């Protein structure tokens, strides 16, 4: 299939002062350093208005995006919405000829208001590698299909048994071999061993516990600094 014509991207409003300023921060380490050291001074020298400075200092990505994308993002948004809430994306059709508007709802319902966000392109993932590995015809069916497992084992007996013996066989053994479900029953809540240790929330790690009888083998214990056994080069002849 022929590739579609690549888009030119969303470059409307690229001459906006805030946008130009952020581009400069991204490409000029000196300017970024000045911004980190003294944001107000850096923004003022870049000619940003008070409203733009307030937006940038708000820490609200929706408000920042709204402004740099040329939308209605402003100081009012920056102060009226929580700092970071990127949740449910709603698409509202725009005016004719205009692109759709993306709106994001927060977890608290209407109280959170709406925040405009830029479209998050999905991260590219290794699906194309994975799917061939789970094709059912390659893995599952040949292994556990009941007709391939059961019938060859039971059906031949019908021909080798004496007719009188058939009366002693339970009908189900002859005509209805045990059904093997093609899929294993789903395990939803298996037994969980008692939780001995619950990791704390992300901020810090417990120090590794080395039990006297079950020592934790820390990776760093494995590594030994290369012993200074030999010297491939003699020391330089310093001095006279």
């Amino acid at each position, binding site marked *: 299939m022929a*590739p*579609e*014509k*690549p*888009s030119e991207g*969303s*470059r409307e409003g*690229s001459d906006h002062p805030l946008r*130009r300023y*952020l*581009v400069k921060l*991204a*490409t000029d380490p000196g300017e970024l350093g000045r911004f980190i050291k003294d944001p107000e001074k850096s923004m003022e020298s870049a000619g940003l208005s008070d409203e733009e400075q307030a937006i*940038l200092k708000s*820490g609200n990505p929706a408000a*920042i*995006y709204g402004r*740099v994308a040329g939308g209605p993002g402003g100081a009012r948004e920056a102060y009226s919405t929580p700092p*970071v*809430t*990127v*949740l*449910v994306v*709603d*698409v509202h059709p725009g005016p004719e000829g205009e692109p759709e508007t993306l709106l994001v709802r927060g*977890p608290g319902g209407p109280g959170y208001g709406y925040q405009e966000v*830029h*479209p*998050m*392109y999905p*991260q*590219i*993932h*290794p*699906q194309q590698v*994975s*799917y061939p590995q*789970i094709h059912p015809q390659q893995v599952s069916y040949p292994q556990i299909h009941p007709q391939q497992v059961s019938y060859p084992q039971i059906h031949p007996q019908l021909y080798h048994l004496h007719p009188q013996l058939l009366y002693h066989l339970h009908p189900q053994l002859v005509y209805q071999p045990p059904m093997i479900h093609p899929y294993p029953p789903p*395990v*939803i*809540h298996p037994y*969980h*061993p008692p*939780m*001995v*240790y*619950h*990791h704390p*929330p*992300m901020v*810090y*790690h417990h120090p*590794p516990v080395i*039990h006297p009888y*079950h*020592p934790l*083998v820390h*990776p760093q*214990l494995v590594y*030994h600094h290369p012993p200074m056994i030999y010297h491939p080069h003699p020391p330089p002849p310093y001095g006279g």
Partner: protein
Amino acid sequence: MREDDAYGTAADGRSGSDRDAKGSLVVVGTGIRTVGHLTLEAIAWMKKADKVLYVVGDPIAEDVIADLNPEGAESLSGMYGEGKPRLQTYNEMVERILECVRAGMLTCVACYGHPGVFVHPSHESIRRARAEGYEARMLPGISSEDCLFADLGVDPGMLGCQSYEATDFFANGRKIDPTSSVILWQIGVVGDATFKQNGYDLSAFPLLIERLLEYYPPTHVVYLYQAAVFPGCEPVIWPVPLQSLGQVPLSAGFTLYIPPAYPTAGDPVTYYRMQALAPQSLA
């Protein structure tokens, strides 16, 4: 006059097409937060290239690329289509990249984050370019995982860290060691191989939770994470009990971090054998 290097970069600033007709490819990343994550070598390559093909997620990154190379910047984002399989989009991107390389251009591909992490077109275009005899290489960038380690305070060297794409994890029977950290990527698009602007089909999400419950208690707290994109913004970090994960609305950018649930079980035999052998190696 100084010689050009293998990738057609000359110190005098001439572009690739001025010098030779042999195309080449370099793939760079713009980082997750363009302001601060863009590396100097990525900037240099984007400046030098004849063509910069890019897939980025924010307008600042787009402006940066267009600023660095006004003549050669070209977005590939338009190749995404509503309901279109992403693999098809990726293949089209690869074709466009190779088209530029074959035309003799020094081609730079810029992707957000790390260009080699969850970016099929970058790896595939490099592989195919090399197979066709062109120079091709990738330069590292700052990925979402790097941001996660920094924002959540996770050191993968302490307790280990397993990393899976979410759909790959439950569809291919990947195993989990619940005594170490686990990161599941693209949890907001799990089970949906197409591109959708208006939210993804998460009907398979209960299967993922069911699978995780085989390893973790229902009350185990996991973390939904999304890195900050703009300067001055904070990352999204939401602790959620595993049993409640299905009730949280997800966006495509979320990553799931699962901390260890159980203590590490040491191997005393190996430990003592290692100790016994250590003096010999030092002797």
